[in-house]
Each structure stands twice: as structure tokens, then as C-alpha cells.
């Protein structure tokens, strides 16, 4: 395992009482790489994300971001993370502008930089006209954009995107996908995204991991996964259904099962 991988998961596991939600999950994502995490509802994607970001302590294993253990060196690790949760976490009684200023303070950005970055992100995401409205009055798509702005505020090295296009209209979803690709390719940001919309993973991801009943059953490019499923040339939906049918962990060369 490379300690300097942007994202590093080692034998990660999480139990809820007797239920094993995530089991022995190992993975690494390099700077500039887009990694898509696919799985059915309840497969363990969001639980993994929450452990990665410091919201949920793992039962076993470790998580490191930029070489810093999220649970032992939380401040260094969290400075590098931008997280867009599946349900936006926003202080809804603040206006959009106030909330971003507040988050800039939590990330300890200098006042002038926080305000400039706020204006820049509001403009980039098309929220400048709503800047002085209460977030509680926003539509779901606008709240999602606010969560994206929050994640980008401090220019993170790692982006964790949980169902990032949910609630966005076609144009906004396209814009977000383009932005994600640009951040990875041009800025070297490592992106780990979960989605149940398979064509997003197909379109954006350098590598794809399938998680099923808490276990990472395979990792690879789309072509590698198709080969593994014994269906060369199949689309990702067919590959996904084949591999998660009665899945047992499948070994990929050079990748953890």
C-alpha cells in the first residue's frame, strides 16, 4: 500500500450491533484519479463515506487521507477533505452567503479569502441571486449546490461525493460532472464518488469498485470488470447485475478483494 495515496483504506470494517455493514474493505485512490463506488441500496457505500470523512468511527481498520490517519490526525486529514453528503448538511436558518462565511471560519480561512471564495463559488454554481436568501427556502437542487460549494470552499485535495447529482436537473448535473472531471484532471484532486446512476460512473470514473453486502467484491476499469463478469462489451448495468447477482468476492490482479 502506498502511504502517500490520496485516499487509503486498510481492512476497514464497521458493525452496527450484530449487523456487519462494511467488511474488510481495502482500497487506494491516487491524486487526480476518479474512483466510483457502486452498490445497491444498503450495500455500505454511505457508511464507508462516513468513516472516511470522520463522521463514523470504524470498528476495524484504518482510513488515511493524504497520508494522515482520519482518526489519529483528524485536523490534518480533514483540511484535505471536501465532502458532499447524500443528504446536504446545512445550517438552514442562515442565508447561503452567511453559511459559506461560517464554514470558511470553521476551515480557518482568512476573512478576506473566505468572502472572496464564497462569492466565487456562489457565482460558479449559479447561486449568486440566492446568496441572501435563507437556505431553508431553497429547492433540493439548490441545497445540493450549496453542499458542493461547502465542499470546495477550502480547495480540498480529496473530494468525497455521495450521490452528488441527486436532485439536480439535467443541465446542473452536466455542469457538476464537467466540474468533477476538471478538478481531477487539471487540479489533481482525488475523487471518490458513490452513485447508483451507472452511466455517471461509466462516464467519469477511471476505476470502479463494486460493493455488495458490505464487501468490496471487485475493482477495475469498466473493461476489466466486463471481463471478470465474463461479458466483454457489456454495459455497466449488465456487468453490475451479473457481478452482484450472487456475489462472492472476486480477485482482481493487484487489487484487494
Amino acid at each position: 500500500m502506498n502511504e502517500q495515496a490520496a485516499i487509503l483504506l486498510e481492512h476497514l470494517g464497521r458493525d452496527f450491533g450484530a449487523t456487519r455493514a462494511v467488511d474488510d474493505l481495502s482500497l487506494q485512490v491516487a491524486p487526480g484519479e476518479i474512483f466510483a463506488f457502486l452498490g445497491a441500496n444498503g450495500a455500505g457505500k454511505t457508511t464507508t463515506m462516513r468513516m472516511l470523512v470522520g463522521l463514523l468511527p470504524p470498528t476495524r481498520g484504518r482510513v488515511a487521507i493524504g497520508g494522515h490517519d482520519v482518526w489519529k490526525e483528524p485536523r490534518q486529514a480533514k483540511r484535505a477533505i471536501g465532502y458532499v453528503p447524500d443528504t446536504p448538511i446545512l445550517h438552514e436558518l442562515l442565508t447561503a452567503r452567511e453559511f459559506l462565511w461560517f464554514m470558511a471560519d470553521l476551515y480557518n480561512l482568512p476573512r478576506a479569502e473566505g468572502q472572496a471564495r464564497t462569492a466565487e463559488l456562489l457565482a460558479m454554481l449559479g447561486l449568486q441571486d440566492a446568496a441572501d436568501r435563507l437556505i431553508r427556502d431553497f429547492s433540493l437542487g439548490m441545497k445540493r449546490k450549496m453542499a458542493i460549494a461547502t465542499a470546495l470552499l477550502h480547495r480540498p485535495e480529496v473530494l468525497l461525493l455521495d450521490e452528488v447529482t441527486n436532485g439536480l436537473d439535467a443541465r446542473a448535473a452536466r455542469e457538476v460532472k464537467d466540474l468533477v472531471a476538471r478538478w481531477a484532471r487539471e487540479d489533481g484532486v482525488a475523487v471518490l464518488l458513490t452513485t447508483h446512476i451507472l452511466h455517471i460512473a461509466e462516464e467519469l470514473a477511471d476505476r470502479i469498485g463494486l460493493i455488495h453486502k458490505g464487501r468490496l467484491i471487485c475493482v477495475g476499469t469498466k473493461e476489466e470488470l466486463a471481463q471478470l463478469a465474463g461479458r466483454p462489451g457489456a454495459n455497466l448495468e449488465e456487468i453490475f447485475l451479473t457481478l452482484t447477482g450472487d456475489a462472492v468476492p472476486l480477485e482482481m490482479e493487484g487489487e484487494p478483494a
Partner: protein
Amino acid sequence: MNEVLSTAWSVARSGWRANWNRSFRFSRMKVAALFLALQVSFFLLVARRVPSGASYEDGLGGLLALVAVQMGWFGMMNGFVRGQAQLYQGILVPLFQMTPARPLAFILGRVIEAVPARAWNSLLWAWAYAGLVPGEGRWGALPVLALFGLAVSLTAYLAGLLLLAFWSRWSPTTFRNGTIFFGAVSLALVTWALIYLAGGGSLADLTAIMRTYRLTVYGAVLALTAVPGLLLLGALAVRPAAVEDLYRAGLYQVLELNETDVDRRVRSRWLPLRSHVLRAVLSREWLELARSRMTRVQLLNWAAGTVGVVFAGRAIAGRPAERLVQYVGVLALFAWFMSYGHWVVRVFEKERRTMLLYRLAGVPARRLLLAKFCSIFAPSAVLVGVSVAVGALAAGASAGEVLRVLAWTLGALAAGTVGGFGAAAATASEGEEQELGAAAPKREGDTAQAAGNNAWWALLRTFTLLLTAGLPIWLGAGQPGLPFHLPGAPLLAVAAALPALILGAGYWIMEKGWAVHGQ
């Protein structure tokens, strides 16, 4: 440290700004102004009724001890209850977990945020109580009482936070029940104060007692609130990492428990009733009540209130039956109102989007009203009946007297529920319109405006419930507080007709609203 202080200041400012946004800036009805006006009116009333004491020293000495007890208890409760909501459950908890900000900044920020409210509270009570100090001395007493109250209140607030941190760390399972403890004791204190005042006790007598026992009072307040509060303050200044570790360990234990704690004790049961609507509504409502942790929490508050009813009963043993209604009946209704009054006040508001299900299924408004009324009145009558029965037995009342006080109290409960239902039905469409448009883009301030309106409607519903329940119980108690006696029969007719009229009007408005939306 600068980083911590600036982040703490930012946390406090976000809390103030959120309050300002919600209750004034984006509230067309300026709920904050209404709330402040109500507060000032209440304290003005108290200040005008406080009799002047014998001397400056007597008045101030007793008042300081009283303020120490009051601010000590409520400050500690506030620290615990608000701290639990803000440091272990609120929206800022995940935001803090996700960012590199230190927990110390989070804790300090919440303490700073509490200062203005504590100061305002101390000032109001000081204003109300200062009247006890005779002559011009009251103006000198006011800042002394206010500053002393604030100091006690803040150290007690910190003591509440310290209790919270240790409790969450050592027993996260029982940690959530801390609010029950504070709620139950506070309800018992308020009940005791009501009994004391209704029994002819006065603030002057109370402060005289406090002055006599002031050393004991100060010792208790010092040991229970000031020492732990200052201990936390010292630890935050000298060993902040230890406080952070304690908080973090407790927080993760509580969050862990929230993830795994699934209550499966209540199995699915559906009532065997013939009427479909009644069956569906009663089954659903009662399952929801049985599964709600809040119901169990409030049951303890009701039990604390009922203990107060028992004391009231013992205090009036051997008095006329009207006294039984005035004390036992009124306090039994009070205990119910403080614990479960929201069942009536929020009967439709709590449904929010699910109200649409009744409309989509074509349920007539009158049948829904009837089913909802049954679902709330039946358990409420049992609770009030039990309180009245034990209170009356404690008073040594005869069977006839018990039945009489039961009849008046349950009659008042029925009238209050009917009246409250009328007001709730009249305002049922308010929240619903907001929900109907939930998915659509909204105009500036729409939701905040609706929230402001909701506060007014909630106030209206509460007032209607209190008025329609209060009138019959006042009649049953022999019209206390009036220097003359009004004819009972016409007033009784008014007490019976008023809730029915309000319900009729509410039903009409509700059905009209449904018809309009249904077009």
C-alpha cells in the same frame, strides 16, 4: 488559541444570526417582537403585583438567596438541555466532525452564544423582584440582582455542561433521560410554587424564609453549580485537551448508541373496529404514541405533576368540594397540559405532509376530526382521571366528591379539546399549503414567513385550548378571584357552547380549504 477563539466567536454568531433570521429578519410577522412583548408584559404584571418589603436589607438579602436558587437551577437545566441539543444532536455536530475545527471552539462558542439570553433573563427577573425592595432602593437593587443572577446563571450553565460531558461519557444509555430529570423536577417546582401562591403564600414570605436559611442556600448553590461551573471554566483555560477528549469520547458513545439503538418493543397491532377511518386513525395514532420515546419522557413529567396534585390534595383535606376542583382539578389539567397539551395544539401541524394522505383517500373532514378527537381524548381522559382520583383520595374526599371533581375536570378537558380542535382545524391548511409546494422553487422568505405564521397559529391554538378548558373548571371551582358571584347557568351554557362554536367554525374553514385545494 486565537484560532479557537475566532472559531468560537463564529459559532456563537451563527447561532445569534440564525435566531435573528428566523424570528425577525425573514419573519413578516416578527415573531421575536411578539415574544419579547409577551415576556415584558408578563414581567410587568409580576413586578406590579410584588408587594414592597419591610426594609432594604431584608428585601435584598432574601431576594439574592431566591435568585441564587432560581438562576442556579434554571441555568443548570438550560446548560444541560440546550447543551444536549446543540453539542450532541444539532446540525453543527456533523459540520464540526467534518471540518478541522477543534471541539474546544465548538463548546466555547455555544457558551458564548448563551450569554445574551441568560443576561436578558436575569434582567427581567431582577426587574420583577426589585419591587420587593422598598422606596428608591429598588433602583439600586435592580443591577445588583441582575448581575448576581447572571453570574449564578452562567456558572450554573457551565455546571450543566460539565454534568452533560460526564454523563455522556459514563452512561450514554441513560444520558438521554437527563432532560426528563430536569423537566420533572422543574414541573414539580412550578406546581409547588402555584400551590404556595394559591394557598396565600407571598414573595415577601418566601424571601423571608430564604433570608433565614441563606447560608444553607448559598452553600448548596455553591456546591452544586458554582464549584463545578468554575471547575469547567478552569479546565477549559488550563487543560482544554482534557475537556475535548472527554467531550469527544462521550459524543462518539452517544452517536454510536443512536446508530444501533432500535426500539422494536411495540409490535404491529390494528384495532378491530368497524369504521375504516376510525380504525386507521386510532391504530396509527396509538401505535405512534406507543413507539415514541417522547411519550415515555413526558409520562414522567406527567407523573411529577401528579405528585404535585397529591400534595395539593393533602393540603386542602377537609375543605369544601369547590376547593377540590380549584386545586386538584386545575393542577391535574395543568400536569396534562404541560406534558401532553401539544397533542391538541399540534394535532394537524404534526402531520405535515401526511395530511395529504387523508385528502387523497377522500376522507371526509368531519370523520377525520372525530377520529382524531377520539385518539387524543381517550388517553388524555385516562391521564387526567388518574391525577384527579389520586389527588382527591389524598384529600380524603368522599365518593360523591370524587365523582364531582372528576366530572368538572373531565368536562373541562373535553371542552378544551373540542375548542383546541376547532382552532387546529381552522389552521390545518396553513402548514399544508407549505407542504404542497415543498418541491417547487420558493420565493424569498416563503418558508421563514410560514414558520412565523405557524408560531402565531400555535399561540392561537394554545390560547383557545386554555380558554375553553379554563372557563368550565373556573365555574366548577366556584368562580374564584371574583369579588361577586355571576349566575352559573348562563355561564355554563357559554362554557359548553363556546368550544362547540369554535369547532363548528374550524370544521367549516377546514372543509372549505379542502374543497379549494381539491378543485
